[in-house]
């Protein structure tokens, strides 16, 4: 949550403000001290902001977070000159991927007008050194030619070295509490190592299986997709054989994209080593590539 700019002040120099003439307690509104040290911040890949990817070509986008301040990453945007790519997000210092496989850019890259909000922020504690975030981008989406890609993470910067020490320590203490949770993207196990799904034949049926690994639960909050045609689907908890809908649902009624995601009205907890089955029937009458992504909060609490 962003910090409000104003806060109530009841004391000055440790003393309560003088009472009002009628004897009631006095309060004032002042600017919250931390606001001076928190600013919006955009990451840019280096050395080049944009990279050109021919069909089948892969590139590693590197984002350095210098030691000026912690970076609290909240959103993702991108520009694509000629079609989407597959993206694999990687925190290099923690040696941590933020998805089980590469995900389709349409499902996680918004625009300045509608950026993709991560299900929860991801905090980069720079300490006294710098951190590196990486995105592996691969032009693996069938039918996409050479495309020029810029991917831009956005969030806020805590300039902790400029803060009073007590304030800097408080931030780290607060963030230490939530480091067991971070945003995570889940794609079906049936997709290949590039995140590309098997093509669904015209009017055919198939099923994909989302499975959470054995070290964390996923609190699923957004359903995101890109496809070459319409389809109907159901979602079913495999272990309980319980459907999340009464009947078949059209793709446009159940899945959104990075800019306009479908928010589940209540988050769905996919526990570790449990599966969610997506049963699909093509409606397009043509071969259909269905890239589905579930975004949520990976929780390592037990």
């Amino acid at each position, binding site marked *: 949550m*962003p910090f409000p700019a104003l806060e109530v002040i009841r004391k000055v120099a440790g003393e309560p403000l003088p009472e009002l003439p009628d004897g009631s307690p006095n309060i004032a509104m002042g600017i919250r001290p931390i606001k001076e040290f928190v600013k919006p911040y*955009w990451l840019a890949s280096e050395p080049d902001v944009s990279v050109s990817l021919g069909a089948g070509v892969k590139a590693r986008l590197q984002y350095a977070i210098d030691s000026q301040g912690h970076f609290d990453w909240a959103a993702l945007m991108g520009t694509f000159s000629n079609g989407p790519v597959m993206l694999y997000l990687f925190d290099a210092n923690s040696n941590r991927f933020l998805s089980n496989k590469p995900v389709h850019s349409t499902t996680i890259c918004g625009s300045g*007008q509608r950026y993709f909000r991560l299900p929860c922020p991801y905090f980069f504690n720079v300490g006294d050194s710098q951190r590196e975030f990486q995105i592996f981008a691969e032009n693996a989406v069938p039918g996409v030619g050479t495309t020029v890609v810029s991917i831009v993470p956005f969030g806020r910067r805590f300039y902790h070295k400029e803060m009073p020490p007590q304030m800097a320590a408080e931030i780290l203490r607060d963030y230490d509490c939530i480091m067991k949770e971070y945003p995570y993207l889940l794609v079906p196990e049936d997709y290949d190592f590039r995140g590309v799904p098997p093509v669904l034949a015209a009017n055919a049926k198939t099923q994909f299986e989302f499975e959470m690994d054995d070290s964390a639960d996923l609190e699923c909050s957004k359903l995101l997709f890109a496809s070459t045609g319409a389809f109907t689907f159901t979602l079913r908890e495999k272990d309980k054989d319980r459907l999340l809908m009464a009947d078949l649902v059209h793709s446009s009624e159940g899945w959104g994209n990075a800019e306009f995601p479908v928010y589940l009205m209540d988050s769905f907890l996919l526990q570790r080593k449990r599966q969610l089955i997506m049963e699909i029937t093509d409606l397009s009458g043509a071969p259909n590539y269905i890239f589905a992504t579930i975004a949520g909060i990976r929780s390592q609490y037990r």
Partner: protein
Amino acid sequence: MSTLKIPRLTRQVTIKDYIPGQPIPELIRDPRNGRVLVNPLKKYVKPYTLSIAPSTITLAADGEPTDFIPMPLDGKGPFEVMQAFFKSQRAEGFTVQLFDPEHNPILMNREIHVGTIASGGGTGTNYEVFGAVGSAGRPFIWPETFFMNERWAGKCLFAVFRNLSTSSNLIRFALHGQKWYHMQATPSVAERMTAIYRDRLRTMPFFYTTDQYMRLSSLGDQEWTVRFTDEAWTEWSKSMIVRDDAFNVQILETVSRKAYMPQPLPDSTVFGSGEFPFLNWESAVYEPDFQLSFRSVNPLAETIDVWLTLGCRKIFPDPQDAVLLQPGKSPGVTQ
């Protein structure tokens, strides 16, 4: 009362009869006894739209600013502006600047493109296209509501427009918000209304654009400044743009050279539009007279005209104790 607090099932009734920027709550809880009441303010606060008079005007093709166009307010009570809308016959749109009854400029540091503070031009995002028709469903919500209190009653807000098309342009411009009918309210409600809008005197919305007109030279690498005014702190929360073509931009603090991105980024990842503004996830607060720089890198061999607007709110010092407003110098907060 349930201790589960199930979201959306347990009705959390506020004790606040007024929350800035939001509709007046219908039900409130009496803090003295916990009873739920109909908010007495609700009967006397209504949605309201203030348009220019006449409601449509034709801007000449000469590109000159118009005379002062009145937006008359009646004397029935304060008007709180929350949103803005426009229609423009020409896609190029027009500029707008608003003035108070004494013709002093308010709300913006110079003329700004209407498409950066109001909804009505249609827009396209990465994956969707939204036509101008139906854009009232995507209102531009001002970063702070603008409370026209009794000082304005019976007077006019004035607008000056300038056509950006080379053809004549039939336009509309309207502000939407809520009207506080304090003249018709019971004395106790009227008194409460007065207290509310007096509380609001310390904040107001403000739209900043670059100090100079932004025309990016062909393949140029230029820097443009935005200087915040010196009478208030500024909180920047939204960024909007209208431009001829794409370019790259980097935002820096002019004096410290602290950069908000390591290098220039595509403008579509830094700015939004009037219908879908870019929202700073964390708003940035600046001291009076602060200056930001916008470095523009034009990758094209042609000039690009840019209208850039920062949606901000001004926070005026507490007249009783300016020390309270200075972060780090408010011992009651930091100790």
